């Protein structure tokens, strides 16, 4: 484990971050009738050199949070202080220049590479945008270095993305992120589109690069095992907010939030013996709509430990709890975390409720016919 020293050197400090997407509707002119609360009040800090993992179910706002941290999705409220500057309030050229310090790696290695650019021009683009390509020889050397960093032959520079396999494309994506020499890399599901063997290759690569370049990672994934494998600290997200945060091993050993427990127990392990004996906490129902989140604790509708009081009225804040095995960097947002840990509160059945996906978007008209025929 590469835990940093006692005096944490914080690289990114996220305070009270909110990202709301307006839902528009209206008779003649659209007006906002509600919001999708994709990210709904997140506090977190990422230390220099660490890997922070973010897990949660699909649609809980992981990607949005990741993008908001990089100001690729303008936050509705809150601040993101990156090494002393508030990125969330940056705009235009300032923001563009600041981007040199933080980069992103995407989930789908194909769609995140412009199919019409050679690898070389893909990589050069970042250099150019930040005026790093002044010297031709140095640039060439830099490109070579990048390629060898991500384990691709130099010959690949002149090829197009479609000429590579999935894993290789992801390497190109990583090289692109590295090209401008960032401190922070936000990786949004960097391996979930890949086959297991390729996935492992990329995970290894990410780790190697971190060791070599001293990078800080924010890794977003829905696969708890992957996150657990690469992260120093893990944040568990549910419906736009963090419900638990702790060191990786500790989270596995002492999960405090009911949701974390359920999540943990749901991950299948490729070992029949474990599988046969594993106790599963089966959640009922699905993630509620972020456009209309439940009151109080967001998880109370599915929580097997839900209590009559508090849960559906008051929204729990992240806090450090006194539970054996939990360190003081372990925070959880549950009113009854201690009682659940001590066994005082027992699990019970939950009646499933139906969650209707989607949210009243604007009146979508009928699908248009193929455009090509309109002219006839």
């Amino acid at each position, binding site marked *: 484990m590469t835990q940093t020293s006692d005096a944490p050197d914080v690289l990114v400090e996220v305070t009270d971050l909110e990202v709301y997407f307006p839902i528009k509707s209206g008779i003649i002119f659209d007006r906002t009738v509600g919001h999708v609360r994709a990210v709904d009040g997140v506090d977190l800090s990422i230390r220099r050199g660490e890997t922070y993992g973010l897990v949660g179910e699909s649609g809980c706002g992981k990607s949005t949070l990741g993008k908001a941290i990089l100001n*690729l999705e303008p936050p509705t409220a809150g601040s993101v202080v990156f090494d002393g500057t508030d990125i969330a309030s940056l705009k235009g050229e300032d923001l563009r220049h600041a981007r040199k310090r933080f980069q992103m790696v995407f989930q789908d290695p194909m*769609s*995140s590479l412009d199919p019409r650019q050679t690898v070389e021009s893909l990589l050069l683009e970042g250099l150019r945008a930040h005026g790093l390509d002044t010297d031709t020889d140095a640039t060439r050397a830099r490109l070579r270095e990048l390629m060898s960093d991500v384990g691709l032959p130099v010959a690949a520079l002149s090829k197009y993305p479609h*000429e*590579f396999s999935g894993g290789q494309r992801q390497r190109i994506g990583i090289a692109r992120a590295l090209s401008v020499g960032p401190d922070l890399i936000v990786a949004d599901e960097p391996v979930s589109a890949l086959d297991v063997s390729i996935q492992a290759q990329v995970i290894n690569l990410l780790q190697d690069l971190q060791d070599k370049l001293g990078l800080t990672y924010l890794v977003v994934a829905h696969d708890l095992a992957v996150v657990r494998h690469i992260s120093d600290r893990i944040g568990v997200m549910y419906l736009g907010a963090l419900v638990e945060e702790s060191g990786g091993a500790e989270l596995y050993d002492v999960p405090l939030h009911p949701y974390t427990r359920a999540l943990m127990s749901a991950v299948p392990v490729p070992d029949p013996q474990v599988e046969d004996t594993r106790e599963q906490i089966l959640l009922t129902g699905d993630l509620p709509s972020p456009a209309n989140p439940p009151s109080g604790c967001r998880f109370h509708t599915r929580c097997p430990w839900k209590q009559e009081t508090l849960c559906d009225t008051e929204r729990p804040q992240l806090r450090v709890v006194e539970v054996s095995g939990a360190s003081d960097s372990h925070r959880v947002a549950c009113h009854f975390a201690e009682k659940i840990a001590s066994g005082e509160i027992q699990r019970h059945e939950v009646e499933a409720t139906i969650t209707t996906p989607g949210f009243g978007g604007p009146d979508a008209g009928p699908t248009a016919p193929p455009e090509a025929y309109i*002219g006839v």
Partner: protein
Amino acid sequence: MDDNTGPSRRPTLGDRRKERIDALATAGTVVDEPGKSLLRSAWERLRRDPVFLVGAAITLVFVVLAIISPWIAPWDVTANPLIDKVRPQSNPVPGPEPGHLLGADDRGRDLFSRLLVGSRQTLVVGVFATLLGLLGGITLGALAGAIGGFVDTVVMRIVDVMLSFPALLLAFTIASLAREPSQWTLIIAIATTQVPIFARLLRGSMLAQRSSDHVLAARSLGVRPRAIVFRHMLPNAMGPVIVQATLSLATAIIEAAALSFLGLGNPDQRQPEWGQMLGLAQRYISEAPHLAFYPAGCIIVVALGFTLMGESLREALDPKSRR
């Protein structure tokens, strides 16, 4: 590298394994096969597609004819060698005779030559109308797609209104707005009908590009917005537009014919154009239907050529239809 924490034992791999990993990782051979470029595989498919080949052949013949017709036409299209044979009642359109394969029109001009040379105007109108339409459509679509927001709303409302007008009616309106009809009125009128189609198409694919990861990636790299639009969004969004342009050529030719048939074309009717020839033929439809038949046939065949080509191009480029 041992997995002592894991509950099950796993065989450790031999030394060769490390070698192999290293070798492969550094060599990382670039594979050619799996992602054969869409264009290349499309071409492979097209090369064997009889529909495409027929379409392309028709188009090619037409284009070549249009280019060389003035030199190979047996007669000057403005001359009226058979004028003295024309008698409004007894011989309104002189029939075929040696030297005049298809006879003459109602002013004694060689019909075959006019048909041949007519391809030229038709091509010019079709191509320029499509080009202009492309230009307008790309501008509007790119504006809407790149800027978004209010600009998008306004541009798209306009485009929707234009789209809801039947194309021919719209073209007719535009053409009739011109104080003096000319070939350019015709071209502009038809281009106008194409603009909303291209604009919507481009805007749609621009929007798709805008929310695509590779654009987001460029943005996160700090690439300047203008470069994003011109280097990433536009080139990638152009595919469907190009295919549509092929199909639009057919529509443009048909529309041009219809408009000049209605008398909105080049006022100088000496230069032959198929639609205008059709229009003239209308007076003789009872007595000399062949006068209408030839240009109508030409229009159909050429439109067919472009359509077949465009359709198969579209199918070839559409990954969905690659079953």
